[in-house]
C-alpha cells in the first residue's frame, strides 16, 4: 500500500526542565510566568543557580539585584548565588 500525505498539522508541547514545581519567590508555577509577565516561555525564562534551584529570571534578578554582593544568596538554600551556565 502506498500512502500519500497531503497535509499534516504538527502539535508540540513544551515544558521547562524544572519539575512540576512553583517558583520559590513568586509561587507561580514554572510553566506559568512571573507575576510581571503575561506569556510563559522565552519572554519569561527560568534560570538555575549552581545550587540547582530554579527561579523565574525576573524574580531572582529582582532579589539578587537588591542585595549587596556578599549577601547574594539562593533564597532556598542560602548558598552563594551564581547563575549556572546551561545550554
Amino acid at each position, binding site marked *: 500500500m502506498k500512502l500519500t500525505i497531503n497535509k499534516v498539522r504538527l502539535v508540540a508541547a513544551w515544558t521547562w526542565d524544572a519539575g512540576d514545581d512553583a517558583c520559590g519567590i*513568586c509561587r507561580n508555577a514554572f510553566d506559568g510566568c*512571573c*507575576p510581571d509577565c503575561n506569556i510563559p516561555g522565552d519572554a519569561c525564562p527560568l534560570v538555575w543557580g549552581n545550587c540547582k534551584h530554579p527561579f523565574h529570571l525576573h524574580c531572582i534578578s*529582582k532579589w539578587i539585584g*537588591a542585595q549587596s554582593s556578599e549577601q547574594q544568596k539562593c*533564597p532556598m538554600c*542560602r548558598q552563594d548565588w551564581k547563575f549556572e551556565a546551561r545550554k
Partner: protein
Amino acid sequence: MNMGGPSSHRRKELTRVAQRRLTRELAEWSVKTPPVPGMSVSETDRVDEWLVTVTGAAGSVYENEQYILRFVFPADYPMEAPEVVFLQPTPRHPHVYSNGHICLNVLYDGWSPALTVTSVCLSIVSMLSSATKKGVPPDNDTYIRNCQGRSPKQTRWMFHDDHV
C-alpha cells in the same frame, strides 16, 4: 489594646507581585485550614495586614497557649520581609520584648523571599518551644524605652544567642 506600634511601611500600596503572592498564600490557608495545627488567620480590613493566631507546641512551656501575631506586608513583599509582632498579651520569652517585638533573624537580616507566612509562624513557634522557662529579655526595659513606638524593622538586631 497595644497594637505593637506603628509601621513605617503601612501606607504604600502593594505591588502586583505582592498582591498575587499574598492571594496565593491566603488560598493555601483556606484550602488546607490550617496548614499547621493550632494556627489560624483572620483577615483584617487591609490586604497588607494579617492577624495569625499561633498555639504553643505540646510539651513546651507555652503548651496550648494562644498568641496573636500581626503581619504587615511591605509594598514589595516578598523582596522585603513583613513586619511581624506579637499583639498583647505577648508570650513571656527571652527573645520577645514586652512591646511584642521579636528578636529572630529571619524577620530582619535573615529574610529570604522563599519564606512564607506559614514558615515564619513555624519558626516563631519553634523559637517559643526552645525556652525552658518564661521570662522577658534581660534588656527589655532599655529596649522599649529606646524604640519609642518604632517598627522592629528599624532596630539594629544582634543575633548573639542561638540558644535560649
